[in-house]
């Protein structure tokens, strides 16, 4: 009558265990919601509408419009195909959609000049393209339990040494917001020659800001007390010296 608590399996877990495991050759089992239609189609359709369809219909020709419609078709086709075959769906929905969108931009030619773009709409479209890219990431379906995988190592679950505090989440959120701010500020640069440099610098800067910011947040969980002992080797000073030298150079030029 008595059932050991550790061996009790809920009906939901038993049902999940009975399901066929997803094969690793890229083919998803029917009904596997690894690619969500919402996370792919919504940002993809918005990015397409703002950055592909709008210029194609406002200033484009028949070739550009045909390319834009074909791109939308491949987006929808790829999203649905990914539910059956992930590799094929990604090939169609990512490569086909992005490729035909790029082809549409090529067909637009000078009509796509920076001066004729709506900056706010273009910036929102850029964000939608980013969300579209992230939407293709595979997500574990909620009813799949990793511990039920026959390849999982059985045993006591590992206990984390510590947990991140709410303050750490707030600081990381601020770092993330700062990282996202740079590409948005880059849209202010209207000069055609400088705009590309601004966007490249903003992208590199955003990656660096988020990367260093995450180190900053996690540093306090490395067992550090925030202050190094005197026996440690000297800290890196090269880029700090370059930073100060560059600052001094700027001050000298400004005062001159």
């Amino acid at each position, binding site marked *: 009558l008595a059932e050991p608590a550790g061996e009790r399996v809920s009906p939901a877990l038993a049902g999940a265990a009975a399901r066929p495991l997803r094969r690793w050759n890229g083919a998803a089992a029917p009904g596997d919601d690894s690619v969500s239609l919402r996370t792919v189609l919504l940002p993809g359709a918005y990015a397409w509408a703002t950055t592909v369809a709008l210029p194609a219909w406002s200033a484009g020709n028949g070739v550009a419009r045909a390319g834009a419609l074909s791109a939308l078709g491949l987006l929808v086709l790829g999203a649905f195909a990914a539910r059956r075959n992930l590799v094929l769906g990604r090939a169609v929905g990512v490569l086909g959609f992005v490729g035909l969108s790029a082809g549409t931009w090529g067909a637009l030619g000078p009509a796509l000049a920076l001066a004729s773009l709506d900056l706010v709409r273009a910036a929102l479209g850029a964000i939608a393209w980013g969300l579209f890219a992230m939407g293709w990431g595979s997500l574990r379906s909620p009813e799949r339990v990793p511990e039920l995988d026959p390849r999982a190592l059985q045993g006591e679950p590992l206990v984390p040494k510590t947990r991140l505090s709410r303050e750490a989440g707030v600081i990381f959120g601020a770092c993330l917001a700062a990282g996202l701010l740079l590409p948005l500020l880059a849209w202010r640069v209207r000069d055609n020659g400088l705009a590309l440099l601004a966007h490249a610098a903003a992208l590199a800067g955003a990656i660096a800001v988020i990367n*260093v910011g995450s180190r900053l947040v996690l540093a306090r969980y490395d067992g550090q007390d925030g*202050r190094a002992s005197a026996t440690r080797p000297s800290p890196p000073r090269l880029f700090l010296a370059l930073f100060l030298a560059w600052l001094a150079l700027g001050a000298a030029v400004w005062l001159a």
Partner: protein
Amino acid sequence: VRSARFWAALYALSVLALAYGMWRLAEPPQLAGLFWLVLGGLGLKASHDGQRWLGQH
């Protein structure tokens, strides 16, 4: 430079320099924007090296 707070403050200053540089890049003279961008980049790299050093020692 052995304090985590020093590198965190340098990180914050660098982010501000980057944001201001990106803002100034849209207005003449653009060299001023480039100056702040380079300054922010150097500061970020210095802060990155400092954070990594703190984590290793």
